[in-house]
């Protein structure tokens, strides 16, 4: 009889532990059970990736559609080459779309935002996004601002500030 209560409580404990793990998976990390996690690969070259890191998200219209897998320096062009995995079900990114490195909030993490182009051809596995816009490096901006050169040199682009 006492052994039975022990067995029942151990069983309940094991279930509670597994249930917590399931909650961690679904509720906390947002792992979706049904989505097949296949991806295809896209590349993009930037002059400067700033503090973009591996595992940063790739978003389109605010929705995450993939992740940055790796960042490396292209030795020929001296550009930063970003390797991204995009979810297979997002297979209709027009080839003239542009990629920009954006910041979530003022000091938040960097991510890649893709703005849709108008072409009827879509990116396929292994292709490279040509139209890119580098990270806004806050220090550079502040430096320019302090030197009073923001208004003079960057007349056209200071709308971003």
């Amino acid at each position, binding site marked *: 009889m006492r052994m039975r209560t022990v067995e029942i*409580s151990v069983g309940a404990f094991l279930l509670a532990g597994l249930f917590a793990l399931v909650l961690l998976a679904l509720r906390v*990390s947002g792992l979706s059970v049904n989505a097949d996690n296949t991806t295809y690969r896209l590349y993009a070259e930037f002059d400067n990736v700033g503090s973009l890191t591996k595992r940063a998200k790739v978003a389109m219209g605010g929705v995450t559609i993939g992740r940055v897998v790796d960042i490396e320096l292209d030795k020929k062009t001296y550009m930063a080459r970003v390797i991204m995995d995009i979810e297979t079900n997002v297979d209709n990114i027009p080839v003239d779309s542009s990629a920009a490195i954006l910041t979530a*909030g003022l*000091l938040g993490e960097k991510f890649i935002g893709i703005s849709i182009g108008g072409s009827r051809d879509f990116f396929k596995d292994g292709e490279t996004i040509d139209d890119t816009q580098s990270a806004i490096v806050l220090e550079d901006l502040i430096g320019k601002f302090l030197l009073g050169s923001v208004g003079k040199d960057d007349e056209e682009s200071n709308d971003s500030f």
Partner: protein
Amino acid sequence: MSRLLDHVATLGRSGLEVLQAMGRATIMLGMALFGRSSSHGSMPSLVVKQIYAVGVLSLIIITVSGVFIGMVLGLQGYNILVRYGTEQSVGQMVALSLVRELGPVVTALLFAGRAGSALTAEIGLMKATEQLSSLEMIGVDPLKRIIAPRFWAGFISMPLLACIFSMVGIFGGSMVGVDWLGIYEGSFWGNMQQSVDFWNDVVDGLIKSVMFGFVVTWIAVFQGYDAVPTSEGISRATTRTVVYASLAVLGLDFILTAVMFGDL
């Protein structure tokens, strides 16, 4: 000069003692888990009994600590992040710190104090009261009958306890953040889901707690088995379990974190 040599010799001797103890611990575990003698009792039911002792009985301290740590994280995170207007990422901060670090580490430390010390004292007392010898004389290998089920129980219980700790901690954080401080629930959980990755955060945290479970339980059962069978010997062994297990957990945590999250 000779004083200096004495010190060097002392150092060498304690180094050798540590190595010997590690050797004994390895042999003990090897014989307990892979030795071919029989436990003369069904291993699953022996393990279930021990899971009750080390796992179920640790549940209260684990859940209570988890809730409070989650609440504190939520409160501190809010106070810092609200200055930058990013209080909606409190959920992300609470979840990441719990899942990656605090869940496995704090659970392991509490486990060493609650269950590890009890294991050491129990086994040491069995040795002192000649129960282990008595088993041997009856023809049952105490490594199989006493050590192995306790080891498995600790090894199985720890990851489950760590999951429960993290989960109740996150709920504690949401209680403070959402219900009390009024962060919008959607962005609290949404931000969290955006930044917590199942494979890289949850599973890595789980791997950590599996390793901690292995190390803490191993230290605890070995210290009991190797204890000097007197009341003083047992009390020392119990202290050693808590100290060594805590140091091992913190050291191992650094190494694992460097490997998992440090781009090494």
